[in-house]
């Protein structure tokens, strides 16, 4: 269950496909509109994210990219439109519910827990996966709920005493986190308080924390902002590795067009809260509207 290698779909191993094959849409947003008071942040946005792809969302500043991510992970509630995730239309959603459904997220300005060490930050990402005790399922109406409460209370006691199931669980999860530490090559800083780390490493730790959630959909908000070329290369490699090794679907916002063109499978372009284009990187690159609105400005 907690061995990373078991997360790898069996068919992914083997021959390398010249064209990467993707699964069904993991997430579909349709006609999303979002406004704050009079400010229209998103207007009638629709696109989908396929299983196992790397999807980039690009656009100039204020295009509504971050708002889009916030909608996806339940932080903002759009006034109009539907979101379908894993085939189910989503109703009201709080971020922690999105987390429980397998959506992880990093932030534009690193949102680490500054008072904790690297390892503790990553361990925090495992919170949803930690269960000292599990109530047995009896199927008897009412009894299950009682049993769950009982298990919860016992769980609390084991935490107070750091005993038995709790110690076992802490150890198990620590082992999982260490796999991630190893994967992202942050062994040397595992016990360093994250506040003392340089920016690039903080971003990496944040990615580690998101990975600890074993997400199916990983939202990355400008994972390479403020990094130098070398750090960007490292980060790109890690994103590709994550996508490849764990089969995680990635949606990312990024400003560096080079990176976007390199690592993403499909790109959606937003401008002033509207969708401008959607397609493979080369298609988007040659799109007239995009060049005018976005790339044109950059030149």
């Amino acid at each position, binding site marked *: 269950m907690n061995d990373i290698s078991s997360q790898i779909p069996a068919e992914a191993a083997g021959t390398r496909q010249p064209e990467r094959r993707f699964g069904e849409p993991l997430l579909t947003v349709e006609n999303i509109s979002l406004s*704050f008071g009079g400010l229209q942040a998103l207007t009638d946005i629709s696109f989908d994210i396929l299983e196992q792809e790397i999807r980039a969302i690009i656009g100039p500043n204020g295009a509504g990219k*971050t708002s889009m991510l*916030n909608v996806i992970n339940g932080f903002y509630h759009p006034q109009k439109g539907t979101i379908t995730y894993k085939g189910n239309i989503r109703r009201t959603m709080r971020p922690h519910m999105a987390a429980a459904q397998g959506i992880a997220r990093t932030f534009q300005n690193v949102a680490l827990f500054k008072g904790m060490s690297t390892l503790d930050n990553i361990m925090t990402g495992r919170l949803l996966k930690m269960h000292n005790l599990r109530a047995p399922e009896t199927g008897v109406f009412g009894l299950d709920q009682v049993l769950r409460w009982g298990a919860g209370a016992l769980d609390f006691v084991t935490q107070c005493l750091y005993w038995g199931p709790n110690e076992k669980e802490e150890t198990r999860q620590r082992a999982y986190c260490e796999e991630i530490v190893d994967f992202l090559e942050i062994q040397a800083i595992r016990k360093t308080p994250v506040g003392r780390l340089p920016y690039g490493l903080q971003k990496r730790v944040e990615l580690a924390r998101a990975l600890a959630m074993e997400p199916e959909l990983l939202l990355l908000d400008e994972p390479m902002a403020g990094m130098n070329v070398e750090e960007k290369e490292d980060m790109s490699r890690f994103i590709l590795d994550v996508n490849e090794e764990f089969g995680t679907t990635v949606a990312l916002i990024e400003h560096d067009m080079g990176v976007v063109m390199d690592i993403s499978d499909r790109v959606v372009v937003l401008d002033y809260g509207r969708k401008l284009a959607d397609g493979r990187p080369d298609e988007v690159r040659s799109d007239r509207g995009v060049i005018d609105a976005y790339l044109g400005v950059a030149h």
Partner: protein
Amino acid sequence: MNLKHLAIGVVCSLGSIPVVGLLLQQLAEAAPNDIFFGWDFYIEVVVTGLLQGVMYALVALGFVLIFKASAIFNFAQGAMVLFAALAMVGFIEMGLHWTLAFLLAAVVMIIVAILIERVVLRPMVNQEPIILFMATIGIFFVLDGLGQTIWGSNVKALDIGISQTPWFVLQGEFFPGGLRLIPTEVVAAVVGALTVTLLAVLFQYTKVGRALRAVADDHQAALSVGIPLKFIWAIVWSVAGIVGLVAGVMWGTSLGVQFSLSLIALKALPVLILGGFTSIPGAIVGGLIVGVGEQVGEVFIGPLFGGAIQDWFAYMLAMIFLLFRPQGLFGERIIERV
């Protein structure tokens, strides 16, 4: 300083009076044999509450000024009120006329403000708010101890020539016995209103006021356009000190100058919650609501609990209020950004 907000606040609080009155009427009718209240009594209670509220507002005003300009939750405001009042009494005891004593006390408060800025705030720039808050508790102790060391801890009368005999106004059909008003409270209300107006003008039309508002909006931005933050802080603390002096004089004339004055700050806290930590009109309206609420609560709800509920009634009021409007009446709406 948003006039629209001010208007809403005033309408709300005034509007609440008849509603409260109506409620009380119902109450009175439900228990006609136990107690009987006439309309005049309700109004008298409410008016007393309003006047009391102005006094709360005066204390709360000091808090708001400092919080707005420096995001410091100044727990020492109450101690500043006491210290200012003690200083003024001290000068009067030296034989000076109260106006002169007032001016001198104002000077003392300015010196205190500058000292606080120099000794406490400046070395603690960029500290977390909770640390600064604790520091103001430190200031609270120092001012308390200092004031009492210099001027003693006896209760002192503060006489600025306002009679303590109640006035009875509007005698007539509606108020058979006349509306009972305590002159000090009326004066306090007037002075309070004047102070607020003065502050509003100061904020709106002077250079310092504009700088102050800039600082309140964004420290970094203010610094980057060359506003001297430290100077602004000294100014704000001085103004807060003088506002505290006014409050001290008002409270002092009615209650006497004594140690418990420093604890009236605690009364101002629910006012802040109601009004929002950063809103001057909020402080005023909040003060009025708390004043009225407390009086009304004490008279009509108190008996249900066995009385003496002022201690916590305002807090409960504020807390219930918060559940519906977490940012207070006039506080800026918090939009969380990620």
